[in-house]
Each structure stands twice: as C-alpha cells, then as structure tokens.
C-alpha cells in the first residue's frame, strides 16, 4: 500500500519562509526598488493589426515640460537580433498594441500625457485577424514546445478502420493571458561609463535574461546583472515573452543616460508579454468493445504571430498517457496579426488534455463503460512514444486514491439522474500527466562562524515556494532549523540557477543544493573527528548525527554545537559549491501523474455551472513541502477551473484588437467560484531521478477543464467541446 497524505496540513511542515514579510507588505517587488533619479517610460502603441508607419510627429510631446526624450524607430539604438521581436527596429506594425515609440519623462504622469500627444501616420495593410481566416496557410513549425512537431507509431489509419468503435470530434480552446497580478516592470540602471547595466525586473529566468541582454547590447555577461528577488506571479509571462519590452526599457535608459523605469499597464499585459495560443484540435479514437484503444490521431491547428513561430506541445498526453499501438499526432500553426503566443501554465498539456480526456469520456459513454475503468483498461506499461520504460508511473494509484476519496463508485452511469431541487449534479473525471524537465544548476551552501547557514542559488521564486524548499534542503542536510537559514536567490551575482518554468526549478536545483550541503556536512564531520579538543574526536563518520544545530554521537551524550565547531576550526566559515546536470541520454521516461474528479451543479433554468467539489490525487515524485505543494496543486487546478468556465481573450476580428483587455472583462476565477478542494499526494520514491523530484507547478492545470466538462455532460447530456463553458451551452 502506497503512503498517501491527505490535504490536512501538518504543523511540522515549515510555513513559507518569506510569508512573514509578504503579509506585512514589506517584500519589495521590482517596481518598488528605490532608485535615485529614475525616469519613467511610457509606450505609444499601434491601433492597427498590420500597418506601415509613414511618419511619427512627436514635436508636441517633446515640447511638454518633464519630457526627456521620445524614441522612435528612427532613434532607437540597434540591438543585436535575438530570438525575440526587436521593437522600434523598423516602421512596421505586426499586431494591434505593438509599441511604436517610447516616451521618457521625469514622472509617470508626464510620460503618459506625452503619449497622448504623439501623432503616428499609418498606412493600413491587409491583416489576418483570426486562425480561421488564415487556416488555408497552416504550416508545420520546427518543434512543438520541446517535442517533435509530428509523431507516428504503428498504422493508425488501418487500425482506425478496423476498430469496433470510433469517434471523431473537434475541440477548441481560446486564447488565454497569464495575467500575473504584478504587472511587468523593469528598472534599468546603466553604469556611468555605459559599459554595464543592472536590471531590476520580475524575471522567471535571471540568467537567461542576462544572456539575452548581454547579446542584445553587445556586452559580456559579466557586465550585466539581473535582479529579481520577489516575483508577483509569472505563469510563463516573465520569461522570454518579456524580452521585447525589457530590452526597450534598458535601451531607453541607455539612450537618455539616466535610470529608467518601464512598468506595463494591465491592458499592455494582454498584448506585450505573451499569451496561450488558441487551438483547434481534431481527435479520433478507435477502440474495441472492451474499451481497448487501438488507434488515436490528434491534429492541432494553433495561432502564432506574423513574425515568430511558437507551438505548444498539445499532443503530449495523447502520445504517452495511454497504451495504444497506433498513434499519429501533428501540430500546425497559422500566422495571425496578433500578439506572440508563448508557454502559459501547463502549455500544450492543458489544452491537449481537454481534448483527449473529453474524447475518452465520449468513448466511455458510447461503450457504456465507466470513464475511470476505461482509463485503467488502457494503462500504459511503458512510454510507447519514445519507447522507454517509465522511471515511475503512479497513475493507477492516483485513480484509486482519488476515486475512493471522491466516492466515484457511487456514480450513476446514466445522465442527469442526480437532482437537487432545480439543480442537476454531474460527476466527471480526467487523468493528467506532465513531463519531468530538468536543467543544469549550481548552488553554494555556507555555514558561518556564528552558525548561520546560507544557501545561494540564482533561481527565482514566483510564489512557487523556492525560498522555502532551498532552506529545507540545507536544513535537512545540516540538521539545523529552517527558521534561521538565509536564502539568496533571484540575482545573477549568485551561482547559476534554473528557470522558474516548465515545473523544472526544484527538480534542477535540488541535486546541486543537496550535494553542496552534503559537502559542508562532511567537512563538519571531518573537523570534529580530527580535532583533539572536540568531545567527538576520534569517532567515525557513521557514528555522528547532525540535528537541532548540534553534531552528536549517535549513542551517548557527546555533542557539540555546529557554531562552536565552525568558530574554533573554520572561523571564516565553511562553504561548498556544487553543480548538477541532467543525463544527456535518459534511459527512462519520466512524468508526474494525476487523477481529478469533479462535481458540478447546473441550474437547469439559468444554465449556470458551479463546481461544487474537486478531488485530485497526484503522484509527482518526492514532495519537499506538503503545505506548499498543496498550494501549488490547488493553484494549478484553479487555472484549470478558469480554463473550463471563465477565461478567453476575445479578438475583434474586424480590427484585430483585443476587446476585453482588463480584469473586469477577462474573467478569472474568484473566491465565489471556488469549490471544496480535496487534495492527495502519493509518496513516490523514483530511484531513477536525481533528488527524486518531478515538479508540480503545471500538473494541477492538466485535466481539470476536461473533468469539469465531463461532469457537465454527466449532469446535462450537453457535450461542450468549445471552451470556456458558458451559460448558453447549458440552456
């Protein structure tokens, strides 16, 4: 029997170590860093989806008091071209909202007022403003996320023709925006000689941003410092998607020779820092009457911009989650004069699992089979996509634990039979998987002569709990309380740490931090053993334990404070560096798994859908902090609730502009939308993963929308294949 920890918080699990300063309002986010003499930048944005700029008249703006400079494509310093849109490089507009000039002024108010005084003369050009308009020009991108664009195993067409039951359905998911609560901001401070720059910004990847800035401005990385101590959410929008405007802010600071702050407005966050691309997915399933899948095809057409290609890995769940000998998948893109898509929480797997897990529910209905039984019948014993064994696969445990807690066995197979007044209830479920990604990481662990332990790793904490788990890893290795540990992250002056994205940060830094802490521990042990003054002198390493700030003999009372050992034998402190990198050629395939069960309540008169309760069970490797992991899983699930019921970025197809670019009209789940959560984490000891970590940030978002849509079907008999589910779908 696998150990399962339910969602009751354990008081012994550390609380978030930086929570104390966050609840006091004392954590300083990027826009709040005080910089002497900082100037303020504001953007002039194009109102057209495609245009050529004939002329920009900034004379009125330049004459305003407080205005320092107006930078257009004519004055913009040339940056070395990187893998991002270089703004103000050419007199060309690719999407509505694209910046065409930047004003720098003494105050933000002066800058905003000047923006309104700039006249841009545009020549409108023909624009493609929707995927449908451009679908005849669909093309194959080079990659889909980190995976191949197309895949094929077996003979899907022949097997589909021979299947006893087939279904073929089209599912669509709309554009989403990340919408971290903290708007993107950069404060760029160039050195006096212009040879280097310090950049304060909310960054999910300080080292990747440092490299891009250094390359763009022709500097060595040593002359660029990127600092991001607190990050007010990211969800994918504060990685490379932020580069175009980040570079613009830094260029403006260089241009005026003063520190410059560029803070985006909420509306600008809909156009300038990425989006989850709209998808149109066609899924075909072929099965035998007993539920065995014999063929699957999954073809996705998605939006990209007119200037760069990006495809989410939508087909990943279809490729790996179930056993099926004959599978073909494809990803195609359509160029639209719209903002550039990029990864958003559970990129690809989120929208892809909506289609796959909805289709399986449709198949179960046709077969008159229990939807959970259908999943278990098709459990995959190995990864057939890359033909490797699993490092571990806890899907069956997730299904068992989740179903039991939810009470799934009591689900009537008939539609619309659970009624409560003029509400009808429905139960739906979905399975989930998300790949384990890892990158290289360095870390330094140090103990000072006063006993203070420090962990230094140039990764980021965007709310994911990184500060806390970095402290826990060192605390565990050195037997010291988490409380007093000093963690430094979010700065390129630190050892190089991983991105905060793709659920990979913890999996990446854990082996490095554990190795560095292990070296400090070994050094402490060596010091007491060889030190004639120590009460532990002469003992062997395996007779010693480190706990509560002491190093002690495993038996007897001999003990010494760590601080005393360091003060006496290493007054400058003990420090160790370590690095860790993933295997170049993995011998196992690794995914985190989940099973999610939803109860919805539909008002039959009004069509209103409420999620009443959600049970989810996850098997995602070693969980470092169950309190914070529960928060991460719920956070991911809330993203899935938004995907199911609320979120959509609406384009006006005539003008190519976003209609609902604010937080009143783009709906995200609020307190009143919350169901009761019942979260289970299954202990999983994966011997094939360094540190045993799988990553959990994305997994909650996978499958949730399908579980809710399947529950709506169970309640109403309405199969909603186009997200989000709205009132009119259920009337």
């Amino acid at each position: 029997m696998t150990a399962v920890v339910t969602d009751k918080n354990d008081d012994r699990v550390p609380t978030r170590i930086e929570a104390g300063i966050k609840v006091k309002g004392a954590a300083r986010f990027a826009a709040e860093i005080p910089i002497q003499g900082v100037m303020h930048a504001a953007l002039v944005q194009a109102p057209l989806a495609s245009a050529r700029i004939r002329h920009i008249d900034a004379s009125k703006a330049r004459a305003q008091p407080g205005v320092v400079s107006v930078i257009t494509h004519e004055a913009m310093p040339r940056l070395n071209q990187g893998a991002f849109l270089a703004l103000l490089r050419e007199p060309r507009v690719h999407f509505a909202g694209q910046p065409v000039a930047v004003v720098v002024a003494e105050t933000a108010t002066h800058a905003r007022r000047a923006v309104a005084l700039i006249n841009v003369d545009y020549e409108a050009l023909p624009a493609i403003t929707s995927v449908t308009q451009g679908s005849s020009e669909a093309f194959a991108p080079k990659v889909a996320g980190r995976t191949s664009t197309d895949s094929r195993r077996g003979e899907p067409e022949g097997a589909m023709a021979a299947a006893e039951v087939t279904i073929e359905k089209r599912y669509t998911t709309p554009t989403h925006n990340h919408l971290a609560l903290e708007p993107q901001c950069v404060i760029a401070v160039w050195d006096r000689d212009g040879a280097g720059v310090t950049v304060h910004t909310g960054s999910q990847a300080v080292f990747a941003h440092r490299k891009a800035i250094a390359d763009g401005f022709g500097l060595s990385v040593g002359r660029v410092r990127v600092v991001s101590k607190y990050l007010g959410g990211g969800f994918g929008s504060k990685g490379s998607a932020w580069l175009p405007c980040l570079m613009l802010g830094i260029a403006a600071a260089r241009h005026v020779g003063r520190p410059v702050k560029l803070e985006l407005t909420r509306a600008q966050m809909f156009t300038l820092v990425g989006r989850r691309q709209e998808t149109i997915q066609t899924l075909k399933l072929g099965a035998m009457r007993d539920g065995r899948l014999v063929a699957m095809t999954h073809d996705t057409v998605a939006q990209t911009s007119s200037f760069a290609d990006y495809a989410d890995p939508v087909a990943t769940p279809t490729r790996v989650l179930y056993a099926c000998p004959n599978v073909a998948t494809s990803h195609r893109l359509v160029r639209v004069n719209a903002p550039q898509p990029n990864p958003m929480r559970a990129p690809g797997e989120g929208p892809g699992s909506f289609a796959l897990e909805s289709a399986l529910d449709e198949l179960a209905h046709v077969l008159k089979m229990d939807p959970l039984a259908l999943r278990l019948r098709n459990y995959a014993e190995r990864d057939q996509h890359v033909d490797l064994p699993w490092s571990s696969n806890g899907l069956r445990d997730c299904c068992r634990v989740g179903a039991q807690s939810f009470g799934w066995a009591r689900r009537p197979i008939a539609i619309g039979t659970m009624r409560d007044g003029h509400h009808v209830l429905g139960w739906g479920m979905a399975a989930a998987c998300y790949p384990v990604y890892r990158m290289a990481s360095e870390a330094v662990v140090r103990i000072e002569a006063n006993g203070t332990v420090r962990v230094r790793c140039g990764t980021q904490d965007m709310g994911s709990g990184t500060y806390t788990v970095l402290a826990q890893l060192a605390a565990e290795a050195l037997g010291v309380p988490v409380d007093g540990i000093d963690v430094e992250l979010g700065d390129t002056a630190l050892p190089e740490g991983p991105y905060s994205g793709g659920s990979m940060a913890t999996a990446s830094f854990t082996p490095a931090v554990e190795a560095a802490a292990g070296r400090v521990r070994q050094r402490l042990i060596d010091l007491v053993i060889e030190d004639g003054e120590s009460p532990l002198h002469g003992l062997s390493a395996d007779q010693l334990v480190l706990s509560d700030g002491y190093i002690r003999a495993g038996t007897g009372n001999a003990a010494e404070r760590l601080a005393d050992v360091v003060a006496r034998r290493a007054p400058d402190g003990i420090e160790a560096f370590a690095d860790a990198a993933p295997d170049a050629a993995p011998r196992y395939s690794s995914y985190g798994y989940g099973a999610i069960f939803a109860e919805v309540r539909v008002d039959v008169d009004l069509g209103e859908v409420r999620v009443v309760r959600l049970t989810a069970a996850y098997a995602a490797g070693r969980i470092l902090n169950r309190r914070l992991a529960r928060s991460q899983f719920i956070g991911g699930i809330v993203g899935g609730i938004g995907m199911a019921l609320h979120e959509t970025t609406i384009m006006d197809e005539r003008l190519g502009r976003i209609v609902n670019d604010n937080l009143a009209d783009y709906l995200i789940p609020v307190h009143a939308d919350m169901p009761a959560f019942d979260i289970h984490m299954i202990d999983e000891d994966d011997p094939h993963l360094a540190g045993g970590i799988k990553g959990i940030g994305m997994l909650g978002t996978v499958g949730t929308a399908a579980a809710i849509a399947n529950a709506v079907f169970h309640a109403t008999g309405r199969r909603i294949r186009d997200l989000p589910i709205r009132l009119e779908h259920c009337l």
Partner: protein
Amino acid sequence: MTDHGDDQVMVTLRVNGCDHEVVADVCATLLDVLRDGLSLTGTKKGCDMGACGACTVLIDGRRIKSCLALAVMQDDKDILTIEGLASGEEPHALQRAFVEHDALQCGYCTPGQIMSAVGLMQEGRATSGASIREFMSGNLCRCGAHPHIVAAIAQVAGIVP
C-alpha cells in the same frame, strides 16, 4: 489643502496614524501617492482601474480601492494600509493566520486580501464560508490561494468555513 499651481496641491494625508504633507497632482490617485509619494509600497497596483483589489486600503474603517480614490479627496480621513496593521512587532491576527494557512503564494495580492478581510470582518460579513467567498470576490488572486485565504479569515473570525 493648498493650491501649488500647475495642477499641484498640498494635501495632508493621515496614514497609519501619522500626518504626511504631500504635494500631489490633482488627478493623482491615492494609490500612486502612497506608493510613489510616501514609499508605502505594501499597497499594490495590479490593474489601476478597480478590478483586482490589490490596492485595497481602509479609509475611516471602510475598505476602498485606492486606485479609484483621488489623493486630494482624503484630507482629514484616517487611512490604514498594510504597513499600519500590525501593533508594533506584533502581527495582526489575520497576518499570522495568512502565514499559518499558506494563504499566499507570490504575495502580490496579499496586502489587498488582508486589508479587505479586515474590512469584511468589521462589516460583520465573515459569518460563513459562502459569505466570506462572496464578499472577498473583489480581491483577485492569480496563484490560486483562495481556499487558504478563506480558511485564514474563517479562523480569525472564529467560524468553520
């Protein structure tokens, strides 16, 4: 309030019990003056149009969105921000409960959630989980800390959510 010309006026803001004389643009929001004029950056800007609640503060005990309030209209009023909530070193019960329940992730919406919860309790609306959820819905959270926020408020209000 004194006119300083060029759309600037001098206003006295009583924030967390201290009077501050500030020269502010007549159209400056209380939020911008708190953050930029007084360096009280605990009050957050999330949307600048009253849709997210990150800028929630209490004025004369009532919760308001400081991005929709003009600074020049706050003469003679008591403004309470997140920085003034604790009693010296002793955190407010809600601040402690937010930590214990992990009612925050990135922490950016947190000051607004806490100030809004203070207002909610003073309004007598923290009476049930459903009431807390309904009357906290003007405070958006993108990390998904909602159930833990409600649990923290319920604990301080002494109810079972």
